């Protein structure tokens, strides 16, 4: 156990603090040294800033949506154009959140920073490709902004035909943006697969990888296999709008349901692009902050891969009401249930890891606990939607909205925040206010539940999604949800203030503030620009027996028993040759 003090007669290993020349944040100066950097850590930080801005933007849109729904007749938009405005609002909220925030959040921002450091490597396999994918992300974002300032977008983030081929809003700009973002995502995934395959340090076998790397690997597989299909789908949609190729457009004998199949073949696996890295973060957070070896390592690792592969077989459950044959719907429904098995395995393993652990209720751990609670609700309500009979009732209601927000926000966003708080000392070398961090996690947890629990009730009572107005009987639930959204916004703002405050007033972070055993905590905080002089030899990433709390310096250190080196002397007996 790690909570003791340093035993006498042992060697303390700690890299100390980086010099200004070593620190990757300060080793070169000027805006160009950031814009043309090939350093994965700087690219990760740029992604972090980028996705945070996208999140802020889409979050404000979400608050506007909720504010509009304060009154049955709509509070924000009035008059003839109110419905159109509302349609554009929720479309942009969804599209920006999905394509610009959730998909790149953990893999691109945290993954870029962490994957090479966790591997003890100097960089990802293809640093230039890495920078290129960041700029592709920027280009995609510009297209979305263009769509916003053009004629808006009102198709919903799914771009369903035939509406998307007939509406006069900027579908082409937005789909072009999503197409480009797809390539950003493909290149990131490709980079990580190659990096993890070829650049693991000596001693790190597949089953000695931190679980975050397993999750990233599984995510990358999906990114590489599913995203190209979205690419061609969006390209065909653009061709449909410009040339009327008649593949999706019923006016020319096209088949709109084919579009739905194509779209969900990507977008269902994309749901796992969003949640799998979150699983990876939580696996690491739970083990580190419980100071206990992760329970069932192999099961967690295999279940990540199982989710990635099963995720490709269940896309039809988005289309139960779209007119598929009954046989197909039954098969898709059955396959959908199989995905819940590996997800449940993970939850049980996390709980078993915490059991009899010595849990520190640090900010990252608070977020991890919130994640388990919220993700479990999100996952279990998914079963209602995967069941054919109940889905007929719940399809396209607020129940669906609440379900996927529990997974995407309660799951991915909360895990992302937990990850950011966990690795913040490593990324920027500063400790934040623990009290402030815990407070923000509490506000977020309460605000989130207040927002989305009422929506389950709304949905099961028949409130359809994407409506700008509603019957007065739903008013109090909608108002509850709106107040919750505001509280959630306050919580997120608190988290932002706590983190930004630490940059200016925070204490310098030690190399290993949490007592973790993975490689990234063995270099300084923040890491030097070259990460490691040479790839370190690694052991078990979840063996906490050698890590002790150094109360004098308020840090965790790796402790080894003092060994006497054998004195150099001639062997007593001369060899016989």
């Amino acid at each position, binding site marked *: 156990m790690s909570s003791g003090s340093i035993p006498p007669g042992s060697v303390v290993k700690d890299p100390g603090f980086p010099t200004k020349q070593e620190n990757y944040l300060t080793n070169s100066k000027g805006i160009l040294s950031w814009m043309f950097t090939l350093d994965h850590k700087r690219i990760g930080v740029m992604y972090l800033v980028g996705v945070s801005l996208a999140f802020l933007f889409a979050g404000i849109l979400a608050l506007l949506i909720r504010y509009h729904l304060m009154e049955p007749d709509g509070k924000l938009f009035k008059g003839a154009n109110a419905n159109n405005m509302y349609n554009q609002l929720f479309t942009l909220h969804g599209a920006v959140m999905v394509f610009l925030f959730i998909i790149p959040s953990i893999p691109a921002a945290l993954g870029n920073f962490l994957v090479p450091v966790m591997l003890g490597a100097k960089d990802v396999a293809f640093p230039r490709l890495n920078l290129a994918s960041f700029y592709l992300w920027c280009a995609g974002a510009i297209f979305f902004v263009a769509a916003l300032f053009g004629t808006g977008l009102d198709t919903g983030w799914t771009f369903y035909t035939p509406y998307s081929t007939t509406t006069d809003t900027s579908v082409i700009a937005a789909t072009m943006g999503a197409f480009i973002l797809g390539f950003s995502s493909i290149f990131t995934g490709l980079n990580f697969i190659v990096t993890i395959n070829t650049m693991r340090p000596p001693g790190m076998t597949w089953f000695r990888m931190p679980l975050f790397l397993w999750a990233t690997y599984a995510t990358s597989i999906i990114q590489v296999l599913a995203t190209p*299909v979205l690419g061609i789908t969006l390209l*065909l949609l653009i061709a449909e709008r410009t040339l009327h190729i008649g593949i999706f457009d*019923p006016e020319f004998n*096209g088949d709109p349901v084919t579009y739905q199949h194509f779209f969900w073949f990507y977008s269902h696996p994309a749901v796992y692009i969003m949640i799998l890295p979150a699983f990876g973060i939580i696996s690491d957070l739970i083990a580190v902050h419980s100071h206990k070896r992760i329970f069932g390592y192999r099961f967690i690792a295999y279940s990540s891969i199982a989710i990635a592969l099963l995720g490709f077989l269940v896309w039809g459950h988005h289309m139960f009401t779209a007119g598929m044959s009954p046989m197909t719907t039954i098969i898709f429904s059955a396959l959908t249930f199989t995905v819940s098995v590996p997800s449940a395995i993970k939850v049980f393993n996390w709980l078993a890891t915490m059991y009899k652990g010595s849990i520190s209720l640090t900010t990252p751990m608070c977020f991890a606990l919130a994640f388990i609670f919220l993700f479990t609700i999100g996952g279990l309500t998914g079963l209602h939607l995967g069941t054919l009979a109940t889905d007929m009732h719940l399809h396209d209601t607020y129940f669906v909205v609440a379900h996927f927000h529990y997974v995407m926000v309660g799951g991915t966003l909360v895990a992302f925040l937990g990850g950011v708080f966990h690795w913040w000392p490593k990324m920027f070398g500063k400790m934040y206010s623990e009290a402030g961090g815990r407070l923000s996690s509490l506000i977020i947890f309460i605000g989130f539940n207040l927002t989305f629990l009422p929506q389950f009730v709304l949905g099961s009572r028949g409130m359809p999604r994407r409506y700008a107005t509603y019957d007065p009987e739903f008013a109090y639930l909608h108002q509850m949800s709106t107040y919750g959204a505001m509280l959630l916004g306050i919580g997120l703002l608190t988290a932002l203030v706590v983190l930004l405050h630490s940059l200016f007033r925070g204490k310098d972070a030690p190399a290993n503030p949490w007592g973790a055993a993975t490689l990234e905590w063995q270099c300084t905080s923040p890491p030097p620009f070259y990460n490691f002089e040479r790839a370190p030899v690694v052991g078990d990433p979840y063996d906490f027996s050698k890590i002790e709390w150094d109360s004098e310096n308020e840090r965790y250190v790796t402790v080894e028993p003092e060994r006497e080196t054998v004195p150099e002397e001639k062997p007593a007996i001369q060899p016989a040759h």
Partner: protein
Amino acid sequence: MSTAQADPVSDDASHGEHGHDHDHPAFLAHHFDTPEQQFDSGKLGIWLFLVTEVLFFSGMFVAYAIFRNLRPDVFVGSSEFLNTKLGAINTGVLLFSSLTMAWAVRCSQTGEHKKLTGMLAATLSCSMVFLGVKAIEYSHKWGMGLLPAGTFFYDPANPHPTTDQLETLGFTSGTAFFLHNSLYFLCAPFLIVLLGVVAWLILSIVKGNKFQTACAMPLTIVCLSFFGGVGLGVILESGSEEGHGAAHDVAGHHGEGVAHSDAVPSVIDDGKVAAPALNDDASETSVLERLATDSTNTGLMSDVAARQAQASVASGAVVRGDDTNFEGGISEASANVLTQRQAGKFFSIYYCMTGVHAIHILGGIAVLVWLLIRSVRQDFNSRYFGPVDYVGLYWHLVDLIWIYLFPLLYLIR
């Protein structure tokens, strides 16, 4: 970058002792430990990229399968318009380019720099011939109105409309001019590039810059090959102009034959082509209409309105046609095959698949030119030939996709 130039002597010396030298050669990126690690990473990377490429095309292959399954007669009939000879020549050209590409990889491994440049130039020339032939195929079809469903206007009675006739079909004069002279528009960018490269060649000779001359010379030949391909296409396309394949002929006769009886399904009003109404739909609509009389139910009312609008627009011919007799080609196919919604759909898929493939050829050309310049600079040797190898793999995939496209589009009759 120029530091990557390999010294042939040290190259040979290091050949025997692979993997044991701990120096960091110039071609080895700083974050890799050994050249082997760098090569393996690149190789895995390019294979993964090829997987994404296959999946990228998969969407179109699925669309092809769905719609061919729905109307096999349309696909067989419309395929008559594709010139098998030109397709076969392009297949041969691409296969040959794969040979030269594989040979180029070998040359880069053995360090035969001159031969490598030659092989890359040969590969590039083949790709240009391919594009030249494709330009002929495309422009010929555009002039005839064999276009994607939205703009399809082929009329068997008048397969080669003049610009004036095109304007009466509702095209602007600019579009009509483009459709009539599309070959010139397709050739123009290549002509500009050719002129640019020739100017570069002359300039480099005048300046006496040997490196630039060595780059510009093969590139000039490469650019000229495009027009070689165009010439080849013109000869073969005009050779079959009189007969114009079976398609033109029979289609023409068919058109004339029926035109007298005033029953030819003209392109413009093909919405009138008989559509088998689905009884289920009708009954469902009537129920909805009855429900929609409730004036509070605005959602249902607009739903019914949308259904009625859709029914009045759609021909409903998504359902399988009655005739399954498509053995005899276009002359035997039912009259409503040669319409926007039928043949037009085939050409939509044809243009999507071959167009995306052509974009990949253009991308391949870009990276091959980059390789050619590096090969003139003698960047590659037995320890560093990764880029040639990776581009080679990509090129083989582009070739392979064409090997699938050719029979699926050209040879289905």
